[in-house]
C-alpha cells in the first residue's frame, strides 16, 4: 500500500516506519525536520488543509501520528483541525483506510479512570476538559462523523506510556524500585516496538473484517490491574505484545 504518515518524525513515528517500511511504500510527513530515511519525505503542517490534501494524493491509507500538547492554539490546530483536514483529504482522494492515534484518556478521561475498571474502547468518550485529551477527542469525533457519511474506515489506536524495552524502570516513573507501583505509569503502558507493530496489524487488517467503519482499540501490554481492557486489540487486530514490562509492577 501507499501510506501517508502525518506526524511521522515524532516519538512514535520511527517505530511505525520500522514496522511498515519493508512492506509498504511510505510518504513520511512532519512539521519538523526531515528524519534520516530512505522513504519519501515531505515537510507539511497538518493544520493546513491544502498541505494535507496535497500530501494525500496517490495514497491508499493515512496514519495520523501528529500531536501537540501544551500550547492551546497549536493543540486545537493540530489535534482537532488536523483531523478534519485528514478526513477531507481522504474524501478528496477516495482513501478508505485511516488510522488515528491518541492517548487513552481522549476516551477514558477522569470521569472513568478515577472511578471504574475494565475500561474498554467501546465506551462513549468522556475526555473531560484537559487540553490534550479534549483536543484529541474532538479530532476523533470529527473522524467518526466523517465515517457516518463517507465510505471511510477509521481505526483509532489509543496509547499512553511508551517505553524502550531495554530501559524499563528508567523511564518516566523513575529508576528501579522508585518506579514500582506508580499508577500513572503502570495502568497503560507499552513498549515502542509493540506500538509500531499494533499499527502494522491495523493497517494490514482487511477492511471487510472490521465490524464497523469506526473501531477503537486500547493498546497496551498485558498488565494485571484490570483497569483497562486490551482484548479487542488482541482479538480484532491479531496483535500480541512482545514486551510485557513486568518490571513496572513486579516487586522482584
Amino acid at each position, binding site marked *: 500500500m501507499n501510506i501517508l504518515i502525518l506526524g511521522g518524525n515524532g516519538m512514535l513515528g520511527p517505530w511505525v516506519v520500522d514496522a511498515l517500511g519493508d512492506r509498504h511504500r511510505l510518504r513520511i510527513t512532519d512539521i519538523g525536520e526531515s528524519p534520516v530515511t530512505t522513504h519519501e519525505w515531505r515537510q507539511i503542517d497538518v493544520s493546513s488543509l491544502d498541505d494535507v490534501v496535497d500530501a494525500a494524493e496517490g495514497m491508499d491509507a493515512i496514519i495520523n501520528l501528529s500531536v501537540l500538547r501544551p500550547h492551546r492554539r497549536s493543540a*486545537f490546530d493540530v489535534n482537532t483541525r488536523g483531523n478534519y483536514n485528514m478526513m477531507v483529504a481522504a474524501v478528496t482522494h477516495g482513501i478508505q483506510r485511516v488510522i488515528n492515534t491518541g492517548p487513552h484518556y481522549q476516551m477514558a478521561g477522569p*470521569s472513568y479512570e478515577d472511578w471504574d475498571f475494565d475500561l474498554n474502547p467501546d465506551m462513549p468518550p468522556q*475526555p473531560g476538559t484537559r487540553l490534550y485529551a479534549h483536543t484529541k477527542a474532538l479530532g476523533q469525533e470529527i473522524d467518526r*462523523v466523517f465515517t457516518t457519511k463517507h465510505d471511510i474506515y477509521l481505526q483509532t489506536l489509543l496509547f499512553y506510556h511508551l517505553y524502550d524495552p531495554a530501559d524499563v524502570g528508567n523511564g518516566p516513573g523513575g529508576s528501579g524500585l522508585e518506579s514500582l507501583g506508580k499508577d500513572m505509569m503502570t495502568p497503560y503502558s507499552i513498549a515502542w516496538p509493540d506500538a509500531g507493530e499494533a499499527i502494522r496489524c491495523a493497517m494490514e487488517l482487511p477492511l471487510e473484517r472490521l465490524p464497523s467503519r469506526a473501531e477503537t482499540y486500547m493498546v497496551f501490554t498485558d498488565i494485571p490491574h484490570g483497569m483497562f481492557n486490551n482484548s479487542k486489540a488482541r482479538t480484532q487486530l491479531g496483535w500480541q505484545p512482545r514486551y510485557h514490562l513486568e518490571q513496572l509492577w513486579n516487586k522482584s
Partner: protein
Amino acid sequence: MRLLLTSATSELGRSLAELLAPHHDLVLTDLAGHADGETNIVACDLGHDESTDRLVEGADAIVHIGYGGHFASSSDLLDFHTRCTYNLLTAARSAGVGRFVNLSTLRLLDDYSENLTVTENWRPVPGVEPVILSAHLCEYVCREFGREGTVKIANLRLGFPLVDGDTAAAVNSGESAALASDDLATAIKAALIADLSANAQSADAPHPVSFRTIHVQSPIPNGRFLLKRAASILGLWEGQGAA
C-alpha cells in the same frame, strides 16, 4: 442580570441583542475582525489570554452562539466553535460565571425522519458540512465542561428556520421545525434562570446537574421536535407542540 452575548455583530447576534436588551444589562462582544468600526461592541478574539478573562469578568451569564453566527471558512468555523468556545468556558469557569447558554441547532437531528418522536435523548446525527459539524463539536466542548460541573450549561437546540414575530408567525411559515423570534427570546430568558436539574435522572444527587440539552422550537401543532424538556426545565409550552 449582566449578560455577555458572543458573535454579536452577526445577523443572529443583532437579532438577539435587540430581543434581550430590554431585560438585561447586555455586553456585546465579537471577534476583532467583526467588531472593527462597531460601537458598543467589545472586540475579543477569545484567545487563552487575559483579554478573555477580562471579557467575562463581572458577567452573570453568557449567551454563546454555537450555530448560525458568522459565515466563515471551514477552518475558522471549527476554530471558533472548538478552541474559542473552550477558551470562553475556561475563563467563565475561572471567573465563576454561573450560567452559560449555548445556542445550537435542531439541524443536528435533521437526518431523523419527520414521523419519529425525536427528543433530547436521541443521538445527534451531524453531517460533515463545516457549519453543522462545528455546531456538533461546540456542543461536545460544552458537554465536557458541564460534566466537570462548576459552570451550569443550558444547551438550547434551536428550531429552523428562525422567523420574526410570535408563535403564529412560526405556524404561518409552514415549516414544522420553525422557531419564532419571540419564542426564542422567551426560551433564552427562561434558560438563564432555570433549574437545570429539573426532572433529571440524577436530580437527587448531591452534585447538581450542570449540562442539559433542551429543544427549542415554536410550539406549533404537530411540530417536528418534542418539547418535553422545554416544559419540564424551562416551564414553557406544557402540552403544546408535537402530539
